[in-house]
């Protein structure tokens, strides 16, 4: 043997495994990450919508309970505003993500 045994062991330990990732590995990972992100975003908007609907429902319920039957009739005019408020919450969240957070991280980069 030309080299001593310790050197040869170290050489063996430094040798790379034969395994290589497939050529499309990066594409697949990026695709999976994007899919996961979209799913999370859909879940987020669904939760926000459900929250707004729940709040409106709870508000209507409270008015009915404390105001007696027919008390909602006087609040009909507020329903469009309540819906607009819900929509605004979703819009603010969306704009915050797209315009503020994304820009902030881009500036850092």
């Amino acid at each position: 043997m030309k080299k001593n045994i310790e050197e040869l062991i170290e050489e063996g330990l430094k040798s790379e495994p034969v395994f290589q990732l497939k050529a499309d590995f990066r594409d697949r990972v990026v695709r999976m990450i994007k899919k996961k992100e979209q799913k999370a975003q859909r879940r987020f908007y669904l939760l926000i919508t459900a929250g707004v609907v729940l709040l409106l429902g709870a508000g209507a319920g409270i008015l009915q309970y404390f105001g007696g039957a027919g008390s909602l009739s006087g609040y009909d005019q507020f329903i469009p505003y309540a819906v607009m408020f819900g929509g605004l919450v979703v819009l603010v969240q969306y704009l915050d993500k797209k315009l503020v957070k994304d820009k902030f991280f881009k500036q850092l980069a």
Partner: protein
Amino acid sequence: MNDRQLVNAVLSGDESALRTLIAKYERLVAHMVARVINNDLDREELCQDVFIKVHEKLHTFNFDSKLSTWIATIAYRLAVNFAKKKKLDKVDFDSVEFQIEDEQTSFEDEDLSRFVVHLVNQLPVNYKLVLTLFYLEGFRYPEIVEITGMPEGTVKNYLHRAKNKLKIIIEESARKEVELI
């Protein structure tokens, strides 16, 4: 682009930065995973899981350590968990019975290198990973401590014991080969 710029670009949703990050560290992850798992399909899947986890947790990375160390920590944990799930971690260092095939006991330099890898593959998971991190990836003791969560003494002990054991087996095999001649 340095690692800080790369991380911030990935966090801002830049897809090409994400590809660059994967390209930069896929070799490290593949090496660690390949030492623990033998099946190529499982290897690919675990490498995917590592990068998905890296992307998921990237916002928590605060540059206290090198990005490579942080990614290796995730790869180490996932690899060890995988080994536990598949019951690959039941091997005890002192009771390892090395299988030595005749064709592998040729002591030309290249053959010995392959023989060493063959022996390393039979070591317990933690030993394999520590050896890979130290010799193949060039991490230093403090980094291996951070990656594995083991005390520095344990890391040094693993490296020392593993190397000694390999030396004894190779010397024994070399003696047997000489006797046969």
